[in-house]
């Protein structure tokens, strides 16, 4: 594998599948799953371009992004559990009103 573009096409496809999930899912955990897919597409781009330069910077960025995503999942699931406690459901349209 010496060409860069297959990795970038794969990343673009993964990102768009994740985008579809974010737009269509009604379940909050389903939305989190789709966000994970989009974050992984970004990481794939970082690593592919890092392979082009041979420097470690792209890998550092990817590791940073992985840690940020894991923190996001932890806080996101805590919010989902809180939402479930107050609404008995985690459908996103039930959480559209503020200060409720």
């Amino acid at each position, binding site marked *: 594998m010496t060409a860069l573009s297959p990795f970038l096409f794969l990343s673009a496809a993964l990102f768009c*599948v994740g985008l579809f999930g974010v737009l269509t899912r009604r379940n909050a955990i389903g939305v989190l799953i789709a966000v994970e*897919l989009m974050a992984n597409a970004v990481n794939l781009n970082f*690593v592919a371009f890092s392979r082009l330069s041979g420097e470690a910077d792209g890998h550092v960025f990817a590791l940073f992004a992985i840690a940020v995503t894991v923190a996001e999942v932890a806080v996101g699931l805590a919010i989902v559990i809180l939402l479930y406690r107050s609404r008995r459901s985690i459908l996103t349209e039930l959480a559209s009103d503020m200060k409720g």
Partner: protein
Amino acid sequence: MMATVGFAIVAAGIVFSAIRAVSSPHLVQSVLWLACTLIAIAVIYLFLDATFLAAIQVILYAGGVITLMLFGVMLTDRKHDVTRDNPSHGQGLGLGISAAVFGLLSATLWRSALPAIGSTTAPSAEAIGASFLGPHLLAFEALSVLLLAAVLGAIVLARRSDP
């Protein structure tokens, strides 16, 4: 040649399992398809000679995030929510928007002249560590503060008593 065929198979697996992850009506199946996608992405990292990142991907994502998400599904959803009532809405619109974005991205990729991967070697775990504690030290420290804040925030949010 062998690498190209292998890459094509893994890439097709990634796209298929990602589509299943966003469209499966059963939420637990959705999480397990996400695990398949993440492990296949670790294989793609191996194609790019990023062995350290592939290991981190399997440990953190396929180990940590999937476990967290399964716990999240089990803790929040009543049984019939998990199995049946996991609908999607606006499928046509969502499909149109994401197809448009994909068309835009791939047209841009198609028109741009990307250089081939030369004879550079992928950075070792040692080089990544030196880079983290050298030029990217501020990012490293910010990350530790962020993880601490996330842990505390998750505990505070989840322990709050019922309203």
